[in-house]
């Protein structure tokens, strides 16, 4: 049995390891598109601050980890897939046969259609190569424009602040992290960042970039023009699925999979940021693009590939973000469900915010700012579908008592 995994991110690596656990004899080939050992994009912000070196970003730290697990890790870019021949064509013209294929190619940042985004000094923050460019340009006092205050943008924001740059954030929507936070929370994050010396422009778009005196001139739709030594583009990502064209693998916002992570083509599976997996909260199919989902996908896909049918219950969308010291989390249906109650507790002065969304007497989504203690119980509460009983009323009155609610309902006498 030959398993081929395209993509050496968290999903691909987890899949390879899971395969080895359940199939001691199969051949496992892990193809990565970048020259470094498998690493975590999640760790790049900490590389930018100098907290870790490049080796600190590696997904697995033990020397010889892949060899020890008899996982063949190779750098290769896949050009196309031929499901009939069960074969991949690689960029160097060679082919690679597979019995079971996992597509875990992740996503790539996209550039909005704006003039000047190809100029020197404009970078994404996605790969280790990008990180090296940013480190070179974002020295203390450098003027930096960050395009996009989504999740990725905000993760980078913190490290840029720590590097001591003069930072301007430009976000097209009306608040920060609009896909993870509602208006009150997003605006609290904005105020916090502003207080930390970051210039945050929401409802603002970059219209054009140009070179000027060896620097970049950034034009905004407000008419303002600002100079920058570095522009970081974090305006969104899309799944890496182009190479599947013609393979018959159906894609939508990502690769369409079933509950066993199978694509529409036999023996081809998908996992991670390129897969449109089952969402726990909605029962729909969505690309989450978060680390825990990628890992879940990789594990479940591998079990199914190895002949252990394991249906996936769906993953819970959740994020944790640290914007210059203000920690925020979001879980599941933080935007609420029809007919559900919600409870909210706001302390804007002290940057504390909690919002719970209910469906009947169960929590289906949550947002929290300024709290880290035992915050994981929100996942527990949501994903185990705990009926709150009398705690519903208590949480409606004070949504901060989630840990008590969880423990009382699960560790019952």
């Amino acid at each position, binding site marked *: 049995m030959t398993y081929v995994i395209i993509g050496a991110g968290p999903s691909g690596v987890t899949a390879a390891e899971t395969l080895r656990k359940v199939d001691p004899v199969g051949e496992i080939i892990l193809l990565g598109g970048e020259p470094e050992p498998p690493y975590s994009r999640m760790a790049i912000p900490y590389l930018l601050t100098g907290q870790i070196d490049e080796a600190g970003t590696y997904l697995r730290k033990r020397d010889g980890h892949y060899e020890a697990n008899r996982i063949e890790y190779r750098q290769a870019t896949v050009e196309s897939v031929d499901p009939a021949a069960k074969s991949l064509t690689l960029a160097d013209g060679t082919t690679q046969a597979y019995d079971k294929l996992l597509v875990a190619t992740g996503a790539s940042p996209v550039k909005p259609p704006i003039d000047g985004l190809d100029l020197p000094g404009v970078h994404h923050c996605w790969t280790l190569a990008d990180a090296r460019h940013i480190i070179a340009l974002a020295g203390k006092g450098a003027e930096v424009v960050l395009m996009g205050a989504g999740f990725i943008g905000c993760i980078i924001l913190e490290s840029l602040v720590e590097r001591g740059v003069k930072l301007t954030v430009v976000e097209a929507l009306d608040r920060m992290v609009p896909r993870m936070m509602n208006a009150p929370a997003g605006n609290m994050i904005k105020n916090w960042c502003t207080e930390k010396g970051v210039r945050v422009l929401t409802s603002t778009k970059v219209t054009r970039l140009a070179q000027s005196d060896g620097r970049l001139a950034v034009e905004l739709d407000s008419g303002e023009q600002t100079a920058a030594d570095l522009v970081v583009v974090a305006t969104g990502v899309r799944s890496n699925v182009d190479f599947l064209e013609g393979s018959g693998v159906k894609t939508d916002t990502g690769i369409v999979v079933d509950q066993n992570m199978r694509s529409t083509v036999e023996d081809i599976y998908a996992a991670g940021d390129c897969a449109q997996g089952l969402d726990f909260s909605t029962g729909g199919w969505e690309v989450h693009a978060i680390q825990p989902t990628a890992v879940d996908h990789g594990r479940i896909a591998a079990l199914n590939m190895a002949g252990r049918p394991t249906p996936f219950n769906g993953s819970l969308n959740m994020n944790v973000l640290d914007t210059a010291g203000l920690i925020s989390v979001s879980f599941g249906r933080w935007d609420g469900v029809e007919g559900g109650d919600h409870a909210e507790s706001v302390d804007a002065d002290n940057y504390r915010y909690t919002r719970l969304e209910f469906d009947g007497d169960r929590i289906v989504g949550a947002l929290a700012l300024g709290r880290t203690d035992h915050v994981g119980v929100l996942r527990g509460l949501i994903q185990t579908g705990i009926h709150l009983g009398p705690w519903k009323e208590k949480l409606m009155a004070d949504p*901060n*008592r989630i840990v008590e609610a969880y423990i009382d309902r699960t560790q019952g006498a």
Partner: protein
Amino acid sequence: MAWAKNILRVNLTKGTCTNEPLNMEWADKYLGQRGLATKYFVEEVDPKVDPLSPDNKLIMTTGPLTGTSASTAGRYSVVTKGALTGAIACSNSGGFFGNEMKNAGYDMIIFEGKAKTPVYLFIDDDDARLLDAGEIWGKSVWDTEDWIKEHHQDPMIRVASIGVSGEKGVLFACVVNDYHRAAGRSGVGTVMGSKNLKAVAIRGTKGVQVKDYKRFMEATAAAKKVLAENAVTGEGLPAYGTQVLMNVINETGALPTRNHQTVQFEGAHAISAEAMVEPRKSDGKPNLVRNGACFGCTIACGRISSIDRTHYTVAERPQYQIASGGLEYEAAWALGAATGVDDLDALTFANFICNEQGYDPISFGATVAAAMEMYETGVIDDKVTGGIELKFGNERALTELAELCGRGEGFGAEIGLGSRRLCEKYGHPELSMAVKSQEFPAYDSRGIQGMGLTYATSNRGACHLRSYTVASEVLGIPEKTDPHSTEGKAGLVKAFQDATAAFDSSGTCIFTSFAWTLEDVAPQVDAACEGEWTAEKLLEVGERVWNLERQFNNAAGFTAKDDNLPARLLKDAAKVGPAKGLTNQLDKMLPEYYELRGWTSDGVPTNETLNRLSL
């Protein structure tokens, strides 16, 4: 080490919070908590001050061991000039607030002045701020605590607050922390209320360090073992709480009953620890839900109780159909034997209200008892009581007055004067069972002679927690003495008073002294704190603290004449029980006590004594 070495000074008049270093020279002489805060207090406050004026100060204080892993080391005290007594007041409380205060980095918080409008102090480690209490003024202790946790979005905040009784000037109001632990006596909550200070809310995350960790762990482990292996602290208190005493003291013939008219209560068993664990008829569950511990306590004597849901007090009021702080012995006595009420659920309800509205069940129950005697003898009538039939044994009168007192309304407001003022008001001062205006706790000094001297000389007015000679005279700890004899009691009282002052200055609970002596405390303090701490030095600290308190009271206007007991105890002999025929022989003990103390026959410390104690 052990001390945070930091004081927070809160000027309520100016609205400022400032830090200052702890005076370590004083710490070496007064250790902490009761001793050290009293030193600060007497240095800063005019002894003649009106307790309810802005010039009085109020100090919340931890001990050096508070916040460490020594058993029971979560205590804090409130030191001020008592609203009820006009004497030095030091009320000690357990729960978790003291630890939180220490963890936030404060040995002491000194409140001075008076806020223009109600405020509460919010502390998040170094961040201390006075905040508007407009929304909680008028709320109970329980609602205040809930409101603060909700408002600051942090269920882990610890709160000490006053209830409505403290706002309304009930003279024996407490400061209540953690819903049902209280700095209970002498009206320290009344002083807090007079300052427009509703609550202190703390989140402390800085931690507590000790000097020599290895030695500290050895010393605390050894001391914990002593507690675990002792019959009182290892078995009696965890199983039955202080209520283990109800039947014992009744049998001793020292259970003051119906305003000390007699010394045994026929309903004692019905309100005892044994009754609290009996399944009740309605739901088969006992009154006692379980025992609970204060911070760091390996004894866990706390009672957590529930009231029969069919009982008249709670049947229509689900908010009281919960588990909460249950009856301790003194409360059970004051609410029960003193008033002749033997309805355990009624007593438990009255106790809940005392906690909820923040006032002292001992002074409340004893004052109700005095009022009942005045009612039964026709001194006061229904017009005065607002229609309440104030007869001994009437549980509905008790629970109604509990609620009225909690709100400072109707005849409840008059009960809030305390027995001395109430009885004087109606022309019968002799019916007040109090010393220095503070009501007796649950031991009749005709049957336990040493307690007469204890009460008469207690620096904060009648109190069992200044020298608990019951331990020796009834329980035989550390050795048995005859409760009916006055012989050696002067020395016994002095020894207990000095040792107790040392325990109260350390951060540990006085209940440990059923098993520990200062020989057990000293190695713990020594391993935790800078300096060298022996049992001898601790005892000297205790004696110094006692004399310092005495000096303050003397300067406040108290004299030897105030070291006295009500005539009933000195002249009316016990009618029943083992002590039948006995009165308290205070006059046989007091002169000897003054002499042993090194005081003049007027009860004033001699210069020699002051010099010996470096005062």
